[in-house]
């Protein structure tokens, strides 16, 4: 007979495993089903290993500037690419073991294999092969009062750029391969694209990045994009915006990409192409159609608490649509099970999910961009504080970038914040919490930010927005 659970979670990315932990804490007998390694994209081939790579790149960038800090390098510093990759893998594997530990600690059954719903309460599991080539799992069936689908997403492919895993690669190969190309073409300048461009550049690869929109990181505030573009060009990364890839041809082992820029056609020679043009939901082979669970553009349709169009079946995280971020996945999941457990919880507020990009200068933002706020009809006050005026930034030797804040004039609502610069990704939490607590600009100005810090830039920008600039 099939084992019965209160809650079955399919997939153990940050969405799935945190949802399972919360379910177990809420006294549900819980199982997770995972066909690959525990931790999903995020821990194995996403957030964590890329941040390890980026740190190596950052240390390398700093090593090129030792004399700026009064230090003398007698000799050379060079990246050992294979070792850099190895360090990243070790970091990922350590975190992956952590998830196993958390499952045990929270009495969650881990069932390896591919899960597929046969009815709203039944999941059929079959053996699968992990990214390490390991065969895992066996044929089995489990039943549950609630099934939560957290199967995530994978790299999207576009017609002019079929991924072969060798010449044209996705983030996975870009992160796992132990040899670096001499010349890399990155297609797509979202977070993943610009992060890999930064990484490979500092590893010594000649990098070109192509973006169809007019700016790098096109979802960010335009002023932010411009700082990044200036910085990348200065570093020596070849930046092509408003540029559409038409196709890639191979000639004697060399690749030639055809790129349309306005009315012109340009050609870029390279050894590898990284396709970083977004993701597509993992909705296949889950039994969705048979059960009548609706999807839209590869994502499962859900209500505000994650319920699909079939009662008792839920979906959370990347497979349930954007923003495709780990912290969105986990909060969506915990909110979903708390709701199932009958807690009086609010659905997550999609306007207060920060987005981060971890190249240098880092980018972090939450809420409306200036353009969006205006379009939404707000009468706004905007303040910007450049890190060039920050004492801490000067001491660190990282004066690129700024913090920009946007407030509603009428009520003082903190509509948005956009930071580009050193440690931006750590600074944005203040704004997320402040917005959660429904701050106005006054409380930000009156909160005694420690000196000297980069976090002061948020306060200083607010001073500017309220026409009382202090250190600028």
């Amino acid at each position, binding site marked *: 007979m099939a084992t019965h659970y209160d809650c079955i979670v399919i997939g153990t990315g940050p969405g799935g495993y945190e949802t399972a932990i919360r379910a177990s804490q809420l006294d549900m007998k819980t199982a997770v089903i995972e066909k690959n390694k525990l931790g999903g994209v995020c821990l194995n081939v996403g957030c964590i290993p890329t941040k390890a790579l980026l740190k190596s790149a950052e240390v390398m960038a700093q090593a090129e500037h030792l004399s700026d800090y009064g230090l003398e390098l007698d000799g050379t510093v060079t990246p050992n690419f294979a070792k850099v990759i190895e360090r990243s893998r070790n970091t990922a594997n350590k975190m992956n073991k952590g998830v196993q530990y958390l499952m045990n600690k929270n009495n969650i059954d881990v069932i390896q294999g591919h899960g597929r719903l046969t009815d709203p309460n039944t999941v059929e599991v079959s053996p699968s092969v992990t990214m390490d080539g390991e065969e895992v799992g066996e044929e089995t069936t489990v039943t549950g009062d609630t099934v939560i689908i957290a199967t995530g997403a994978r790299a999207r492919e576009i017609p002019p750029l079929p991924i072969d895993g060798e010449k044209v690669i996705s983030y996975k190969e870009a992160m796992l391969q132990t040899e670096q190309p001499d010349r890399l073409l990155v297609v797509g300048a979202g977070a993943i694209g610009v992060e890999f461009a930064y990484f490979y550049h500092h590893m010594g690869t000649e990098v070109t990045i192509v973006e169809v929109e007019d700016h790098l990181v096109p979802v960010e505030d335009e002023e932010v994009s411009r700082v990044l573009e200036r910085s990348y060009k200065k570093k020596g990364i070849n930046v092509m915006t408003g540029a559409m890839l038409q196709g890639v041809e191979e000639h004697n082992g060399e690749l030639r990409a055809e790129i349309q820029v306005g009315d012109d056609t340009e050609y870029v020679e390279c050894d590898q192409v990284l396709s970083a043009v977004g993701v597509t939901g993992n909705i296949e082979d889950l039994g969705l159609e048979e059960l009548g669970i609706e999807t839209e553009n590869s994502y499962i349709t859900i209500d505000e608490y994650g319920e699909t169009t079939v009662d008792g079946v839920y979906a959370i995280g990347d497979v349930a649509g954007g923003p495709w971020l780990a912290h969105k996945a986990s909060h969506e999941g915990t909110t979903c099970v708390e709701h199932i457990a009958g807690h009086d919880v609010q659905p997550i507020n999609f306007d207060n999910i920060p987005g981060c990009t971890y190249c240098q200068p880092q980018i972090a933002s939450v809420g409306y961009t200036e353009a969006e706020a205006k379009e939404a009809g707000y009468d706004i006050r905007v303040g910007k504080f450049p890190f060039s005026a920050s004492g801490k930034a000067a001491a660190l030797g990282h004066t690129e970038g700024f913090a920009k804040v946007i407030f509603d004039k009428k009520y003082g609502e903190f509509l948005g914040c956009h930071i580009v610069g050193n440690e931006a990704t750590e600074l944005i939490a203040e704004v997320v919490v402040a917005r959660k607590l429904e*701050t106005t600009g006054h409380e930000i100005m009156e909160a005694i930010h420690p000196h000297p810090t980069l976090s002061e830039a948020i306060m200083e920008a607010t001073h500017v927005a309220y026409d009382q600039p202090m250190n600028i």
Partner: protein
Amino acid sequence: LAERTPEPVPAPTDASGERVKASPLARRVAQEHGLDLGSVAGTGPNGRVVRSDVESALEQREATPDAAPE
């Protein structure tokens, strides 16, 4: 510096003189509409009044027109 920037709205008190816990945004919206925060039930942790509580209270006031002081 044509216009003077608005000052923060101080924490109001309820009928019994107790301080009402309310978010700054809730306070400002209530002030703008002349709504007494002490009369609003808060749904935040510890009964904290948040903007949506004020907005529901305003809707209710609208539904019962004789209550509106404006």
